[in-house]
Structure formats: structure tokens, C-alpha cells
């Protein structure tokens, strides 16, 4: 709160970031108590916690930037699916643990260089959030690369599961590099990097990790899209029905 905010695109950008963090945190937290090893339960909870923290910061910024008297919580709990702006990738179901690991990896490989670029954002609140979040994302990426490599180059079953995860999730990655007019405006004003500019770093990370993991990126260029307009997959509605239940059922209550 407080400091002036440069353009109207910031509210939308912060929503996209915040929603993406929140929904991925939700998916990861579904594993709580059900992971294949105790260390993974702890690590996943840790990642989810970082992402919820980031979601609070981004949604707080979105609320301030739009200036309609809403809060991070009311944005999280009182918007229906069409108002959500998270990447389609992060709302995809957990599947087996391999798919969850792969989803996190494909996300981290995009998220980390994005946050690094945002550290020099012309909008200081964006830069501040990125400063904090990029440290967490660096660690997430390190961890997810490590797991992808070890599981890819593990047993034939683990390799096959990781390859299948990669194949299924691949069409949800293209969306990360597509721009709309808001992205163009954010790039012009130096608030956020152009989405396509993040692709080389993402591809370099994937190239190294998948080679070490003995996995092969699919050749299709088909990309699901729509999240920037609030057009999601059928999964998001169920996530929100569960997540928002208490706020919806007991309107106005304090918790």
C-alpha cells in the first residue's frame, strides 16, 4: 500500500502471477500426507508455503493496484473461475507424483528467469516481490531439476512415467510465452519482460535437464491457451469450489 503504481496493467499482471502461485500451491498441498516419501511431504509443503507467500504478495499488489477496496483474500476467495488468471499448466491434476514433479519443473524453469528479470522492474513493488521470490524460486528449480534427472535416469518405470508426464503437460507450456496487449504494454514500460523473451532460458534449462534425465521433449508445438482471458480447463472450477467453500458459505465472517 502507499506508493503510487504506474499503469493499469500492473493489477492484471499481479493477478496472473498471484493466481498462478496460489493454484500451484493448492495442487501441491493436495499431496500433504500422501507423498511417496516423508522427505517429499516436507519438501512439497515447503514449496507450497513459498508459493502461498508469493500469492499473498502478488494478490496484495493486485488489490492495491486496482484500487477497488479488495484484499488479497477477497481476490483469492471471491472470484469465480472466469476471473482467475493462472496458467493452465498449474491447474492440471496432480496425477502420479512424477506428473507433479514434472509440472513443478516446467513451471520453475519459467518462473525463475521471469523473477530474475522482474528484479529490475521499473515498478518498485514488482521488483521487491521478485527480489524475495526469486531466491525461493532458485531453490525450487534446483530441486525440481534434480528430481527430474534422477527419476528420468532411474528405472525404466520411472523414466516411462516421467516421459509420459512430460508428454501430457507439454501442450500447457506454450502459453507461458504468449503475449497479449497487456504484456506488450508491460514490456514497453519496463515493468515485466516480454513473455517470448523468457523462452531461450527455459529451453536451455530444459535442454540440459532433459538430456541428463534421458527424456525427450515432444515435437508438437500445439499450445493450450486462454488463461489470460479467464478461459480455463474444467479442473479450475472444482479447485475453487473446494478452496472457497468457507468464505462462500459464511459470507463476511472473520477467521
Amino acid at each position: 500500500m502507499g506508493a503510487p503504481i504506474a499503469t493499469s496493467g500492473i493489477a492484471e499482471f499481479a493477478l496472473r502471477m498471484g493466481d498462478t502461485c496460489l493454484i500451484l500451491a493448492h495442487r501441491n498441498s493436495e499431496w500433504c500426507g500422501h507423498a511417496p516419501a516423508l522427505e517429499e511431504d516436507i519438501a512439497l509443503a515447503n514449496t507450497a508455503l513459498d508459493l502461498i507467500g508469493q500469492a499473498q504478495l502478488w494478490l496484495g499488489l493486485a488489490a492495491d493496484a486496482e484500487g477497488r477496496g479488495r484484499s488479497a483474500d477477497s481476490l483469492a476467495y471471491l472470484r469465480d473461475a472466469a476471473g482467475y488468471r493462472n496458467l493452465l499448466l498449474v491447474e492440471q491434476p496432480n496425477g502420479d507424483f512424477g506428473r507433479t514433479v514434472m509440472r513443478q519443473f516446467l513451471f520453475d524453469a519459467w518462473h525463475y528467469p521471469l523473477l530474475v528479470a522482474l528484479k529490475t522492474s521499473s515498478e518498485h513493488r514488482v521488483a521487491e516481490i521478485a527480489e524475495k521470490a526469486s531466491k525461493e524460486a532458485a531453490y525450487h528449480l534446483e530441486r525440481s531439476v534434480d528430481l527430474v534427472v534422477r527419476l528420468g535416469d532411474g528405472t525404466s518405470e520411472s523414466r516411462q512415467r516421467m516421459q509420459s508426464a512430460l508428454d501430457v503437460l507439454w501442450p500447457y507450456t506454450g502459453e507461458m510465452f504468449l503475449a497479449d496487449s497487456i504484456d506488450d504494454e508491460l514490456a514497453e514500460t519496463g515493468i515485466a519482460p516480454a513473455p517470448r523473451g523468457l523462452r531461450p532460458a527455459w529451453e536451455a534449462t530444459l535442454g540440459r535437464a532433459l538430456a541428463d534425465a534421458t527424456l525427450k521433449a515432444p515435437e508438437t508445438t500445439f499450445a493450450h491457451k486462454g488463461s489470460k482471458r479467464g478461459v480455463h480447463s474444467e479442473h479450475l472450477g472444482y479447485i475453487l469450489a473446494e478452496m472457497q467453500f468457507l468464505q462462500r458459505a459464511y459470507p463476511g465472517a472473520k477467521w
Partner: protein
Amino acid sequence: DPVERAFQERIDDGQKIEPKEWMPEGYRKTLIRQISQHAHSEIVGQLPEGNWITRAPTLERKAILLAKVQDEAGHGLYLYCAAETLGISRDEMYEQLHSGKAKYSSIFNYPTLSWADIGAIGWLVDGAAIMNQVPLQRCSYGPYARAMVRICKEESFHQRQGFDIMNVLCKGTEEQKAMAQDALSRWWWPSLMMFGPSDNASVHSAQSMAWNIKQDSNDELRQKFVDQTVPQATFLGLTVPDAELKWNEEKGGHDFGQPDWSEFFEIIAGNGPCNRERLEARQTAWNEGAWFRDGLTAYAKKAAARKAAVPVAAE
């Protein structure tokens, strides 16, 4: 037996026993049972609370709950490590849990039915757990005592968070207050059962006390818990569901009713509201995760082989 006598003297002297040192077989077995049961309780205990993470009512509450459940997994980890120093592997302990041979705290066989249950668990269940665990920080087995120091610190934090949830609900709408009362009504008696049946009924207590791996009687701890908790309930404006509950000036504590011990023994026998589901959840996590653990093991072997092969190739 002079060795055994010397061992007992060290304990009576307040010394710590460390992993490599000699200890009676009964001491080792009792500790393995007690520590692994405690570890299993932390692990299974993730499930009832984890049930509300995706439905936590604010982002802040969600983060706090997630951190709490993560702490519990961490406690499980310390405790498994402590038990491992006694010569049992984590996989063996899991096997005992999944086969039903090892127990975990019966309290986790009750369901979490509303958000207030998350408050009640923190307030009552963690409260009772702390009462059990605080003395164990001084227990005779070094690794266990040290794990307990760390755990108790976090648990008391959790208990305050649970009480805070209850406090906010009790200051909230009528519906929220009803939710809080309902949670107290359901969790009160199971919490009292957490201290176990009266010591008269407990076989192992005397030996465990002599070994300093149990310090207080079940009934003493239960009394302490009631005396601590009743004023808190009063503060919250909630009613403890015990018609016999009243302050006894003479003994300086509360008189209170007995839990339904037949329910307690039913649950221990497997017939609790969630026994099957809790165990199935853990079995499923373990079985469906086999490929994952195998994958990591296979990679580690390959990596070691590659490392070993490098100098050979260079020669």
C-alpha cells in the same frame, strides 16, 4: 546383574544413555515401540489436519496450517531417526505401521469435520501431547530427549495457533461459535483418552518410570490437562461436555468424569471412525510411491557406478 545395576544407577543419577552404549534389551524394545509409535502418530496426524489445507478460510490460515502439518512431518523424521539409533530401520517401522502391527495415537482416527476442528486439534490435542512430551525432554535416552526438546518448542507454538483459531471463532458469528462448541464437544473426550487408561490398568508403566522414559502417571497428566484447559474453555465462552466437571477446592483441582473407555478400546482394536481410511491412505501413499523410491535408488547406483568408472576410463 551388575551391568544392569550400573545401567540403572546411571539413570537414577540423571545421566543420558547414548546409542552405542550397552542397554537392557527391554529398555531398547520399549523405547523402539514408544518412539516409533510417536513417529507414526506424527505421520498419520498429517491426515486429519491436511484434510483442511485446501479449504482453509484465508491465505494466512492456509499458510499457518500448511506449516504446521509440515512441522509434523519434520517431527516424524526426527523421531524415526531417534528410533533408528536403537537398531531398527525406517522401512521396518513403516512395515510395522502398514501391516497394523505398530500403533499410532488413536486420536487421529477421529475425523476433522469443520474448520473449528483444526482449532480444537491445536488447542486440545497438541495441548495434551505437550503435557505428555514436556517431561520426555528429560528422559534417559539422549537422542529421544533431544528430539523432544525441538518438538516441544514447535508444539507449544501449534497449540497457541489452535487456541487462536478457537478464539477468533468464538468472537465471530453465531454459526462460528456453534462450530467451535461442536468441535470442543467432539474432541474433549478423545483428548482425555490421549493420556491412556488409568495407570492401574497399564502394565508397562512402572518399569518405564524406573527407566525414566515415562515420568508421570496417566492420571496425573490427565488431571493437569483438565486443570489447564477448563479455564481456557471458560475464557472462550464454551461448555466442556462433562456434567461431572467441577472445581474441587480441597484437592485444588477439578473433579471430572471418565471418558467412554469402551470407545477407546474399540478404536485400538481398529473400530474407530477413520481407522481404515487413515491406514489405507498411508498404505496407498507408500505403495504408489514405490516406483519413485526405486527410481531414486536406481539413479544413485548408476551415479555411483559412473563415478567409480571415471578413473578407470582415464587410466
